[in-house]
């Protein structure tokens, strides 16, 4: 069937990306904190390639996605856009549910289930968010993080955008594990994953037009800014937005022109940045 062929080509392509990412992941130093609760210096060994794809994505965005997002944003009333967002969100609740279970977050899983059934049956197939449970979006990349798999190198994938290699593998996994995709496939409904991806993508892009423009205008290295935002945001998602665990930058140093610190705190005179910390860690491993 057409869908089978598409699926196997997609599978092939995704596996290729995933393996590239995994091989990159093998360069992760041992003992790295997988959830990055301690903030680690970014690993971007593929930076030239990433920058290239970043530029490619910018071009595709400017030519195709952004204009569509503009039209979507300007032509549709707020209520319709909310419904689109709700609809696609709702379709993803089953995979969020599975990921929450895999992460051991039973409360979250319960919310996903509740949300899905309430919004599907009472919310006209998901168009309206009746449940208002404000569930987190859980993907397999986050599940891997919770399981302790390290982040791996930063990847900018064509079209898909910023990822870590761990998340890239997760994307492939989610695609095949997603119950909605499986049900659609069994019933021979074509292109469901694609439509879902496009719908969610345009909606999200529309909401992000101004903020992203603003970040770009003020950045002196847009690629690096996005990379930083992506990684920090990712950590926040993995930790489900729990501030208590979110790492804060280490600024435990004293300025040279200040009075010298007391004898028992001489260590503060040494600037503690990630390099010294990770060197020490490597030395002890």
């Amino acid at each position, binding site marked *: 069937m057409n869908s089978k062929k598409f699926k196997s080509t997609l599978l092939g392509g995704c596996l290729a990306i995933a393996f590239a990412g995994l091989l990159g992941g093998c360069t992760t130093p041992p003992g790295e904190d997988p959830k990055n609760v301690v903030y680690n210096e970014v690993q971007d060994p593929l930076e030239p390639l990433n920058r290239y794809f970043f530029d490619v994505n910018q071009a595709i965005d400017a030519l195709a996605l952004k204009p569509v997002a503009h039209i979507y944003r300007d032509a549709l009333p707020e209520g319709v856009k909310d419904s689109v967002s709700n609809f696609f969100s709702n379709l993803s609740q089953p995979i969020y549910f599975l990921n929450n279970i895999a992460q051991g977050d039973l409360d979250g899983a319960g919310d996903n289930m509740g949300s899905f059934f309430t919004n599907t049956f009472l919310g006209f197939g998901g168009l309206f968010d009746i449940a208002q449970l404000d569930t987190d979006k859980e993907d397999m990349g986050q599940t891997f993080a919770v399981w302790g798999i390290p982040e791996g190198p930063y990847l900018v994938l064509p079209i898909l955008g910023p990822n870590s290699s761990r998340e890239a593998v997760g994307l492939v996994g989610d695609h095949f594990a997603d119950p909605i995709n499986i049900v659609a496939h069994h019933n021979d409904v074509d292109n469901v994953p694609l439509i879902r991806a496009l719908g969610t993508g345009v*909606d*999200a*892009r529309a*909401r992000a037009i*101004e903020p992203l423009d603003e970040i770009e205008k*003020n950045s002196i*290295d847009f690629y690096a800014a996005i990379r930083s935002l*992506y990684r920090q945001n990712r950590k926040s998602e993995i930790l489900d937005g729990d501030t208590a665990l979110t790492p*804060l*930058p280490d600024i435990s140093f004293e300025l040279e022109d200040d009075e010298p610190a007391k004898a028992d705190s001489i260590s503060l005179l040494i600037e503690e940045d990630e390099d010294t910390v990770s060197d020490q860690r490597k030395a002890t491993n």
Partner: protein
Amino acid sequence: MKMIRMASLALATSLFVSPLALTATSFASYAQADEKADAATELVDRLGKEAVKLLADDSKDVSQKRAEFNRLLARDFDMRLIGRFVLGKNWRQATEEEREEYLTVFQDYIVNTYQKRIGEYSGENLNILKAKELNSKEQLVNSEIIRPNGPAIKLDWRVRRNKAGELKIVDIIVENVSMALTHREEFSAVISSNGGKISSLIDKLKSHLEDTKS
């Protein structure tokens, strides 16, 4: 989905303080720890109110507002410490002149960037939630920006008492994303891709300011 999360994050990073009405928060009155918390919260509160007044002040023109904004920044933020943190390990390799030049340009860059962000801000309320002690010198003030459309945006302020005993803000964390860290990673990338020269960063900042100051 990740993109939606990034979208709300991106939206959040483009906003700053601008309360039109401040919800009163009550603090339990325990001992000293709470005095520190109160002091930190008051700092954020006062800054917020002044920033709003400044924004709404139509009697001032752009350059006057910028000057006033500069004053608030210098008063309530530890720009030297932030600048040094943002430069990271490159600070040690910089000469004294480079450091001073960098700090001047850096302050200019921050004023330029955040003044615009605040300028686009209207109709939202700043709600200060609580303050938490991070260590003997620092407090984290949790607040949120209540928006008419959409969920509240989490905004945390990292406040630190310096050697002189003054309380200053050293970082703003929007939806768990640290602004200081983001700038640091960006600057670090610019320096690395220019052979590790701090002068390249200074030049880049200068030309950016020329392009965007209008």
